[in-house]
């Protein structure tokens, strides 16, 4: 570049005009070289990822062949055979490449699960249809599609008036989903709703969007904070929303009354309100449907989004989790989701008469929640409104 003067650099993209001065030409060629370097560096990076993945794939394939040929039960042992594929040779426990893996190996196997990687997203930008006959590695390329997350999921709009909104959303999403009529029940599997979680103190199941609010009044230093909140409310006027209005009364009484009673009093009262809300919302659709919904819904979500194998695995995981956590937080664990377990824990909740049966169903159908402590998390919003009906009869 420095020896002979040219109008451009190595990339040859940024070209100086013919009548440019020497400095101009130099500036153009420097810029052009820098551009070249950027592309070069990017290419090296991608080349590395791709070539190493293909080389590993070639190695995995030939090792698999060798293992099959020698039929050893111990996976770690090095079979004493010589195997050869188009891309690699297996010999003395070593894998030797033949030629360039970029040319000879077409697919990429996951080095962990040894299944082929899906190379294109299934939806959105750059999407391609995966071959239904192939079991792919579960790590998929991320989806880039407006309104959806990287897994192609979307959420039912939260907030008050959810029952109606839910329908709207479903109708809006007509284009992408099949059979969205009839509201939440026929919601496509990639449309998720907000879960509920268990309050670690009162063991009540609370819709996640209200969890902070609930914990503030339930845990937040029993009466003290509530009264502070009340003071705040007075200052702020109506800004704090309806639910707090109900909190208002209990705090005063809380100071006088013994703890357990008062503790239960305020949330319950508040919850009742929430439940009423919910009931109202779902009523117009169909009261009978209410009973079907909770069971049908989560099951659908599971079946459609995840293959059955996966489901078992997850379940296995979460069971393990539960075992691990039994010592320190069993109360929390059981409080929420699984009424099957719920019968056992320390806090007796005998009054939950009708709910256990229903909940058992839920528990079985439901995707097991990620953590033991979040048993309630996966619960569908509809479920919450359903079980809340039962909960609103005094739990203690």
């Amino acid at each position, binding site marked *: *570049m*420095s020896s002979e003067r040219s109008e451009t*650099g*190595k990339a040859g993209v940024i070209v100086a005009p013919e009548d440019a001065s020497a400095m101009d030409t130099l500036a153009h060629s420097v810029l052009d*070289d*820098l551009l*070249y*370097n950027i592309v*070069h*560096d990017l290419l*090296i990076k991608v080349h590395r990822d791709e*070539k*190493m993945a293909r*080389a*590993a794939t*070639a*190695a*995995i394939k030939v*090792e698999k062949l060798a293992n099959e040929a020698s039929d050893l039960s111990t996976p*770690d042992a090095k079979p004493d055979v010589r195997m050869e594929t188009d891309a690699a040779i297996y010999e003395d*426990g070593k*894998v030797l*490449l033949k030629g*360039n893996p*970029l040319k000879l190996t077409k697919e990429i196997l996951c080095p962990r699960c040894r299944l082929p990687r899906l190379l294109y997203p299934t939806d959105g930008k750059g999407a391609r249809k995966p071959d239904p006959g192939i079991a792919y590695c579960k*790590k998929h390329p991320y989806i880039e599609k407006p309104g959806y*997350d*990287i*897994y192609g*999921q979307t*959420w039912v709009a939260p907030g008050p008036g959810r029952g109606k909104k839910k329908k709207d959303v479903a109708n809006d999403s007509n284009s992408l989903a099949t059979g969205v009529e009839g509201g939440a029940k026929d919601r496509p599997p990639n449309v998720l709703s907000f*879960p509920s*979680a268990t309050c*670690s103190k009162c063991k009540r199941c609370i819709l*996640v*969007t209200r*969890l*902070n609010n609930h*914990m*503030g*009044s339930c*845990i*937040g230093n029993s009466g003290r904070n509530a009264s*502070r909140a009340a003071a*705040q409310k007075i200052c702020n006027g109506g800004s*704090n*929303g309806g639910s*707090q209005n109900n909190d208002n009364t209990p705090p005063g009484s809380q100071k006088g009354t013994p703890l357990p009673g008062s503790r239960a009093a305020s949330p319950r009262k508040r919850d009742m309100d929430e439940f009423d809300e919910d009931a109202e919302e779902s009523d117009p659709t169909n009261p009978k449907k209410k009973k079907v919904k909770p069971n049908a819904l989560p099951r659908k979500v599971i079946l459609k989004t*995840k293959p059955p194998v*996966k489901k078992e695995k*997850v379940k296995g*995981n979460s069971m393990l*989790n539960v075992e*691990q*956590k039994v010592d*320190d*937080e069993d109360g929390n664990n059981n409080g929420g989701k699984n009424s099957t377990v719920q019968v056992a824990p320390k806090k007796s909740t005998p009054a939950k008469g009708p709910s256990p049966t229903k909940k058992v169903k839920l528990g079985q159908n439901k995707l097991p929640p*990620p953590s033991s*402590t*979040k048993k309630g998390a996966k619960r569908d919003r509809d479920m919450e409104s359903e079980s809340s009906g039962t909960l609103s009869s005094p739990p203690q």
Partner: protein
Amino acid sequence: MSARPATPASPKNFKVKAPQPGQPLYGCEHLQRLFNQDQATTNTSIQHYKAALRIILDTTPLIPQTAKSIEGAISTSLTPTYLCLQCPWTLTEDDRAKHGNKKSHRFYVESRSGALYCQMCDDIVWDPTFEDLRLRKIGTGTFSTSGFPQAYHSNTAKFDRKRKHDELFAQDPAKDSPQFISTNTTVASCKANGLRGIYNAGATCYQNVVLQSFLHNPVLRNFYLSDGHQSNTCEMQHCLSCAMDDMFQDFYALENTNGYTAANILSGFWISDKKAFENLVTTKEQDAHEFFQFLAEELHERNGDGKKPESGSEHSCNCIIHQTFYGKLQSTTTCQSCGGVTNQVQSFLDLSLPLENLTQKKGKKHGGKIPAMTLQECLDEEYIKSDKCEYRCNACNTMQQARRQTSIKCLPNVLSIQLKRFEFKQGRNERAAKIDTPVHFPLQLNMLPYTNRAQVKDNSELARSATYDLLSVVVHVGEIDTGHYVSYCRVGDQWFAFNDHKVELAQKSEVLGARAYLLFYIVRSLA
């Protein structure tokens, strides 16, 4: 060229990296032939590769970028050149083939990354043995697996990444064997990748953004995933560190892709006797930075020496939070009358950079219109420039004018920076205001100028240890009293945008264009 030192024959015999399952032994057939000739060839090849890497990574770029043609014409270029692996010759891409044909030298080291080019494959090859050396050199600045020369330790201990590296990744060779690893780890599904949203539990987005930045912090992730704090043996009720442990498990071990409900974090937060915020009101939105401080202190107490952190002094602790976030500041106060110097050292969890003064200064210069600032300008203001102050001089024994200069004495592994966008304005009913000035921040940050070793020139080890890469960005959108927090985190080279339960892919340009409130940088040599 010519500068390549002729490496004396070392008595040590180099070995090719032991075969790993699922990986070929050599980068290509031709390297296989090279390595199988005899021990001497293997030795010189590896020595030459190391020498080439040293030239590329440790010396000024002028040396590797200067090539000599076959005819002997010397030229320096901006674009990659190729260092011959078999002789001390640097060539341009065009001359590479000629040199190869003439001398039968077939392997070249690319001058920008140190990658190996094989002429017979006509492609870059990624050989496990060479790649190991290259990554180690880039990561730690040295080829050796064990420790630095002792002398180095003592005088540059605080900049010594290798030491920190070793502390964090301390390895017992027995525990490094694949056998040990496979019997003692649970393999998570390929689908579990730590990318999940966190549901907003009612104005808790300020917590979610901080939790996401913790979740995608490799140091914290490694700590929790390697059972650094085991929730099943912890005695503490409602322990926040246990809640973190559970959360890490759920993010990195389960296949769930829907949002996470951070119920335990939330209840731990509510139960904690240390109130994170004064006037904690359930529905009120809070400050993400305060939550970050709260969470860091809480986790320190659960994992550390139990002492209350900092409060102005130098606090050393080996807990994961200190290892991750804490650095040390040194303020030097010079008395203007007697010239006496006082040094004070202080631990810091994060660097808080005021924006208001600089904004006003710049605004005046540009006639009221406030131009964008850079992060480096803000850092200059705090850690390079000195300011005047009144102080009681011990030597003079009176109040004196003094100059005070603060610089960083010890850089943390993860540097957290707060841009003070929320300032209380005096007078006007003490109303706080949000400063919305854009502050440009880089993907790669050099912190060396802000340390007390800024004057040391040409020390590549220092420069390396002060180079940081952007890890996550917390952004506040909206007004001061109401708004929303979102965050961006980097996983590998890909950026993701986290908005409560929603996770989306993000472009670098989107990240860099954000009006950051909190920035997290991770030291490069750890990555």
